[in-house]
C-alpha cells in the first residue's frame, strides 16, 4: 500500500519568517547596507563572486546578507541567480600583462621590471587583533609615490628567454574552449576545462589539496613565479559593431606557479608551470588553483599518478561546493520511507544473526513467547 504523507506547510512558512527575523537580528542595531559589505567585506564578496562564478559585487553582497554570512549558502544563491539570465556571449581573452596592477610580487626574482609591489596585503602584519578597529576610529589616507608608468611583463615571459621554462599552455589551433556550464563533465578532460572548474572550485578544498602536494603527496617543488592583482579591461565581439565593444574593467588575481621538473620520458628537465586565475582579490585561492593545475598535469608530463591531487576525476568531481553541499545537506531532508525499509531489513538481518550466533537466547525468547 502506498500512503502519501503531506504536512509541514505552516511549519515551513513559520521557519522562514523566523529565519528572516534572526537574519535581521537585534532591531536596535542598524541594518547592513550592501555598499558597506562591498566596501568593508570586500574579500568575502570576492570569494562569493569567484565561487559563485558571477562577477557582480552588489549581487554577491546581497547574497552574503541573505545567507547571514554563510559563504557557501551565498555562493549557492548566486549560482541560482545566474541561471535566470540570458547569455550575451564569450568575452575576448583578458590580457593580464596589461593590468592596472594593485599588487605584484615574485618569489623568484628580486629585481624584475616593474618591481615588487606589495599592495594592500596581510603579509608581514603581526596578526594581532586591533582594538582601535573595534572602536571605529578614522583611518589615514594611504601614501602616494609619484612614478613613471612602467611596463610590467609577466615573470613567465622573463624566464622564457632562457628556454628553461615551458611556454604558456597551448591547445590545438582549432580547439574551442570547453564550457562546463554547457556540457557535462567528461574525463579525462582538457586543461582549459579543468581550469574553468578550478577557478570556481571551493577555496578550502583546493587549498587542502595544494597543501597536500607541498607535504609530499605529488611533490612538485613550487615557487611563486608571480602573483598579480589588479583591473583588466573586458571586451566582447558583437555582430552590431565593427569592433570589440569595451565592457568596463574587472579585478582578477593571477598566480604563476613555477615548478622544478627533473624530466620524464615525455619532457626534458625544465621548469613546468601551474596557472591560477580568479575573480577579485583572491590570492590564496589563485595559489591553490595553480598548485592543483600543476598536479593535475601529471599524465601530460609523464609523471606517476600516486596522490589525490593528481587524480583529475577525484579533484574536479569534488571541487564544486554547491554540488558538494547539495548532496551532503540533502541527507537531512525527510527519508522516512527509505529509512523504514532499511529498518525492516536490518531487523530481519539482526534476527537471522542472533539465531545463528546465539541460538540459546533465541530459544529462550521463543519459549517465553
Amino acid at each position, binding site marked *: 500500500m502506498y500512503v502519501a504523507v503531506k504536512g509541514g506547510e505552516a511549519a515551513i512558512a513559520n521557519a522562514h519568517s523566523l529565519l528572516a527575523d534572526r537574519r535581521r537580528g537585534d532591531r536596535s542595531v542598524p541594518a547592513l547596507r550592501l555598499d558597506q559589505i562591498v566596501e568593508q567585506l570586500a574579500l568575502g564578496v570576492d570569494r562569493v563572486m*569567484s565561487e559563485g*562564478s*558571477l*562577477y*557582480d559585487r552588489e549581487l554577491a553582497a546581497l547574497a552574503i546578507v541573505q545567507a547571514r554570512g554563510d559563504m557557501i549558502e551565498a555562493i549557492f544563491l548566486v549560482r541560482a541567480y545566474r541561471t535566470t539570465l*540570458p*547569455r*550575451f*556571449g*564569450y*568575452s*575576448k*581573452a*583578458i590580457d*593580464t*600583462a596589461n593590468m*592596472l*596592477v*594593485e*599588487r605584484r610580487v615574485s618569489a623568484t626574482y628580486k*629585481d624584475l621590471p616593474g*618591481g*615588487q*609591489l*606589495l599592495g*594592500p596585503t596581510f603579509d608581514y602584519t603581526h596578526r594581532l587583533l586591533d582594538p582601535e578597529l573595534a572602536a571605529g576610529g578614522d583611518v589615514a589616507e*594611504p*601614501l602616494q*609615490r*609619484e*612614478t613613471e608608468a612602467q611596463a610590467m611583463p*609577466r615573470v613567465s*615571459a622573463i624566464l622564457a628567454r632562457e628556454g628553461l621554462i615551458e611556454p*604558456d*599552455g597551448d591547445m590545438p589551433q582549432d580547439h574551442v*574552449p*570547453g*564550457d562546463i*556550464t554547457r556540457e557535462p563533465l567528461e574525463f579525462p578532460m582538457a*586543461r*582549459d*576545462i579543468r*581550469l574553468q572548474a578550478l*577557478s570556481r572550485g571551493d577555496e578550502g578544498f583546493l587549498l587542502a589539496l595544494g597543501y597536500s602536494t607541498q607535504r609530499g603527496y605529488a611533490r612538485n617543488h613550487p615557487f611563486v613565479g608571480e602573483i598579480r592583482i589588479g583591473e583588466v579591461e*573586458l571586451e*566582447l565581439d*558583437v555582430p*552590431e559593431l565593427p*569592433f*570589440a*565593444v*569595451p*565592457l*568596463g*574593467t*574587472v579585478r582578477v588575481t593571477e598566480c*604563476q606557479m613555477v615548478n622544478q621538473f627533473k624530466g620524464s620520458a615525455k619532457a626534458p628537465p625544465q621548469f613546468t608551470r601551474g*596557472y591560477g*586565475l*580568479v575573480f577579485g582579490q583572491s590570492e590564496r585561492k589563485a595559489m591553490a588553483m595553480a598548485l592543483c593545475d600543476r598536479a593535475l598535469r601529471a599524465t601530460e608530463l609523464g609523471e606517476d599518478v600516486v596522490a589525490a591531487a593528481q587524480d583529475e576525476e577525484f579533484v574536479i568531481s569534488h571541487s564544486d561546493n554547491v554540488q558538494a553541499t547539495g548532496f551532503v545537506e540533502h541527507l537531512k531532508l525527510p527519508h522516512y520511507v527509505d529509512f523504514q525499509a532499511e529498518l525492516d531489513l536490518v531487523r530481519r538481518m539482526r534476527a537471522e544473526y542472533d539465531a545463528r550466533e546465539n541460538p540459546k537466547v533465541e530459544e529462550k525468547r521463543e519459549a517465553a513467547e
Partner: protein
Amino acid sequence: MRGQEARDQAERKAAMATLAQSSGDDIVRLWNEAGLPSDAELLRGPETGLVTLRGRIGGGGAPFNVGEATVTRATVRLPSGQVGHCYALGRDKQKARLAAIADALWQDPARRNEVETNLIAPLRSALTTAHERRRAETAATKVDFFTMVRGED
C-alpha cells in the same frame, strides 16, 4: 578615407570604453548639467545578461572560460536616425540607456563635439585621476632593496 574611418572607430570605441567604466551616477549628473537630449526610441533593452569572461592558460596561451559577469545592454535610435549601442558591466539599466544615446549622439557629426566635451572628457578625466591615484598608492608599496655592508673596511 579608410584612415579617417579607422580613426573614427577608435574614437567611438574609446568613448564607449569611458562610458562603460564610469558610474551611472556620474553619467546622469553630467548629462543633466550638459542638458543633453534623452529622447530616443529603445530598439532593444535595456536588458541584463551574462558574458563569459575568458582568460589564457599561463597568461598568454590558449583561451579558457573563467566565469560569468553581469552585463547590461541597450540599443536606441534617435529621432534623427542614428542608432547607438551600449554594453556595460553591471546591472545599471539607466546607465546603459544613456550610454547608448550618447553613442548615437556621438555618431551625429553635429553633436559629436558636444558629447565629447561635456560628457566624455569630464568622465575620462575623472577616471584618469582615479587611475593615477591608484597607481601612486600602489607605487608607495614598492620594495626598495638595499645591500647591507657588513664588517670593517
